[in-house]
């Protein structure tokens, strides 16, 4: 195959990876053609040093230990928010009174960055795992709740009426029409929730913590180990991208008919 045709076919892939590779090369070679002043050199690191630090931390088990702690906070918090958010969203979508009752709190809590509750949660639940789980929960529950609720609201009224006419009760209605119809919305909510949950893990572990990847980043930063900071940042980055892509895949499979909108995380 001619190289030109090959390039034209794979243009987006080549340019995309090419740009990232180029950035990495430029970053790596900065010390070669520019000697940083001593003050700046303290904060500077290169991709090769980051990779070396990653390898070392992986070998001595540091990453494994911190990762395990972070993963538990993430999974339990996200699990709790799924268990609370989806049913509550379903009920809120079906009951106008409950919707009106809860609306002020949900609007306020959704607009406010939930991170502000962190000092309060630390005060109430201590610096152990529970304050992290709850900050993850507080971040992740609202996207799930609101998306489920919007999904229920957008259910086709005709379908609801048909099922009603055939004598279905509220529970059957939920199972046959409402829940299947809301699935695409719930998945979209899950994608947002994952982002918020990871944010909660990171920030929760920055403060009053002695374990977890967020703690690893914060303590490395105070000791000027910039390469270790980047190891942590890249781990979080990789996890977020992988999880987001996985949910996206699920989303496009379940809802290929929905129009594309702007990316939101």
């Amino acid at each position, binding site marked *: 195959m001619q190289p030109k045709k090959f390039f034209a076919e794979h*243009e987006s892939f080549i*340019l*995309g*990876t090419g*740009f*990232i590779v180029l*950035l990495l090369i430029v970053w790596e070679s900065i010390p070669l053609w520019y000697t940083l002043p001593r003050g700046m050199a303290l*904060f500077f690191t290169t991709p090769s040093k980051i990779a070396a630090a990653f390898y070392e931390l992986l070998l001595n088990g540091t990453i494994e230990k911190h990762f395990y702690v972070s993963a538990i906070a993430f999974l339990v918090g996200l699990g709790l928010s799924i268990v609370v958010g989806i049913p509550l969203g379903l009920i809120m979508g079906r009951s106008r*009174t409950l919707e*009106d009752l*809860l*609306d*002020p709190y949900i*609007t*306020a*809590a*959704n*607009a*406010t*960055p939930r*991170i*502000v*509750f962190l*000092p*309060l949660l*630390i*005060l109430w639940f201590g610096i152990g795992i529970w304050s992290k789980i709850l900050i993850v929960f507080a971040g992740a529950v609202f*996207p799930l709740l*609101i*998306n489920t609720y*919007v999904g229920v*609201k*957008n259910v086709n009224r005709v379908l609801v009426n048909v099922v009603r006419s055939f004598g279905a009760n509220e529970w059957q209605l939920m199972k046959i029409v409402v829940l299947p119809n809301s699935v695409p*919305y719930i998945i*979209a*909510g899950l994608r947002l929730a994952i*982002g918020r949950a*990871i*944010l909660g893990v*990171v*920030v929760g572990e*920055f*403060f009053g913590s002695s374990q977890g990847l967020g703690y690893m*980043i*914060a303590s490395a*930063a105070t000791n*000027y180990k*910039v390469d270790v*900071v980047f190891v942590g*940042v890249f781990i*979080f*980055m990789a996890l*977020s*991208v992988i999880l*987001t892509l996985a949910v996206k895949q699920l989303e496009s499979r379940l809802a290929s008919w929905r129009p594309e*909108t*702007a*990316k*939101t*995380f």
Partner: protein
Amino acid sequence: MSAKEYFAEHRRFWIGICSVFVLVCAWELTLTYIFPVNPFFFTKPSLIGTAFLEQIQSAKLWHDLAVSSQAFIWGFSFAVVIGIPLGLVMGWRRRVEYSLDPFLTALYASPLVALAPLFIIIFGVGVTGKAALVFLLAVFPFVFNTFAGVKSTDSLLINVIRSFGGDEKDLYLKVILPSTIPYIIAGARLAIGRGLVGIIVGEFYAASEGIGFAISQAGDTYRLPEMFVGIIILSLIAVVLTELMRKLESTVAPWRASDEVR
């Protein structure tokens, strides 16, 4: 009759008010009569109210707010100035899109607040570090929403401009930018939320003034009413800014359904 109609129209508002009122009363009464409040770990609305009045009369709160908003405004302005042009170019130039999209998507998806400690040690605890953090978090919604807006521009309009001999500048200023504005406003709404996260995390981490610092310091010293005042003020600001953007969105582009997933 008219009272009933009035209630039907404003049902949501009044039920919401009642709900908040009942919750506040229940909170107050429970902690006054059933479980006497332990001021170290819990607080009640009357104490928060007293602290609120005290705080808004003191200069410290306004000073903290001014410090935080200064950093926020710097970061946010840079995000607008850099994000929107970048999104426009990405949407319009296919090769630029191909080159930048994977890189920027990865950054957008990842929790960039993880860089907060690094930013603070590099830029110090002042305005610069926080502004840089706000910029980093707020720039991506602008880039990607502008990008989506350009992509959804009606190609008929573009052809019309071209046919009448408009050049690249006319294309950008007369067609692409106007049709992208609703998307940009929606992006601004997301960016406000992310920018606030940046401010708060920056000030929790290391600061000597600012609203986030005030909240975390009140928490560290067990002054719960003051902490709640900080949280309430911050959520008021967040709600007002977000709702303003939502209003602006529906004024500028009433055809865009507002039930879009938040």
